[in-house]
């Protein structure tokens, strides 16, 4: 899982990954989310007058583990009275796996 941040085009280096598509004033997509920017892309955006980009901000393994544990504890807090109930088992395990999957 990665965070994103809005940053000036001038502070963006080649290799940075877009977290959101870049659109022009009419809403047309110029570059899609997930694209690793090259120098040529950056030049092209500069020529089109784009000033800011939403880019992927990588986080380290330690921070990821901390967030994962926080989320797990939150789910267990919500299930604090029902975690052992037979009727809750499917949902509890599905939500834990679902959140785990979102962290990857």
């Amino acid at each position, binding site marked *: 899982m990665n965070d994103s941040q809005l940053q000036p085009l001038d502070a963006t280096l080649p290799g940075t990954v877009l977290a959101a598509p870049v659109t022009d004033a009419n809403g047309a997509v110029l570059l899609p989310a997930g694209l690793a920017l090259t120098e040529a892309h950056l030049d092209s955006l500069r020529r089109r007058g784009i000033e800011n980009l939403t880019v992927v901000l990588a986080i380290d393994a330690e921070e990821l583990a901390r967030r994962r544990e926080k989320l797990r504890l939150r789910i267990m807090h*919500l299930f*604090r009275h029902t975690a052992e109930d037979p009727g*809750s088992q499917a*949902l509890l395990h599905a*939500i834990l796996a*679902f959140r785990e999957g979102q962290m990857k």
Partner: protein
Amino acid sequence: MTPPSLSEMIGRIHGLPVMPAVALEVLDSMAGADTDIKDLARRITQDQAIAARVLRVANSPLYGLQMRVASIHDAIVVLGFSAVRSLVLAAAIVTSLPAGRCPGFNQERFWRHVLGTAVAAQALAKPLKRSPEPLFIAGLLHDIGRLVMVALYPEHYTRVLDQVGEQDCCLRDAEQTVFGFDHAAVGAALAGRWNFPADIVDALAWHHEPERGTPDGMAAVIHYADAISQALDLDGAENGQMPRLHQKTIDGLGLDWQKLTEVLADTEARFNSYQLMLG
């Protein structure tokens, strides 16, 4: 401070703000009444507060539209009448039913939970091969009894909230202790009084005890949708807690792991758009 009886409480509902006429007409049209779609669309458009909230959601990434829709008429053309009237009903209910003043009651969290339950019910419709619209409405209204209790008897409801805080019990148990009945009973009585369709009344009455509802009715689905909204933490209430789930009912829905996971993802995606309505 003697608590009111259920009939006393229901007798006072005339003191509550009424639902906008548009919302009642939308409900009628859902119940199969003969409705002039063009005329209804025109009237929805006249209620700017509702129309603006509907358009905010219609233009969200959920629907993936290539162009912005700028009017209710366009939204109906692009998304279909059924999708738009669900949005209209949600917007009408959210804008028109204030909770009044009750210390400790967080109205925004209430609506987040309600919208979460409504979209979870919608998401469950697909794997359960049910019609999404009635489930969405039942989800939207499932806790309406709570809003009535809060609005008409804020002092009593503060005691309910205090008890939840002190004992970490569920809201429903505290309602039973303070009032002698819970929000499900109030919601069902209110829905009956407002002549809501019988299947909605049944879902409101039995969403916490689905084994007592009409077999194959909506109570079982709302029972699970309520829990899914809570498990996804959509209201973000610090001391939120899962409702107890009735095992036979959950097993009876027959959702395997993959389908349940898809429902969770679908619910969250829908909620991210629908919550724009609350802004």
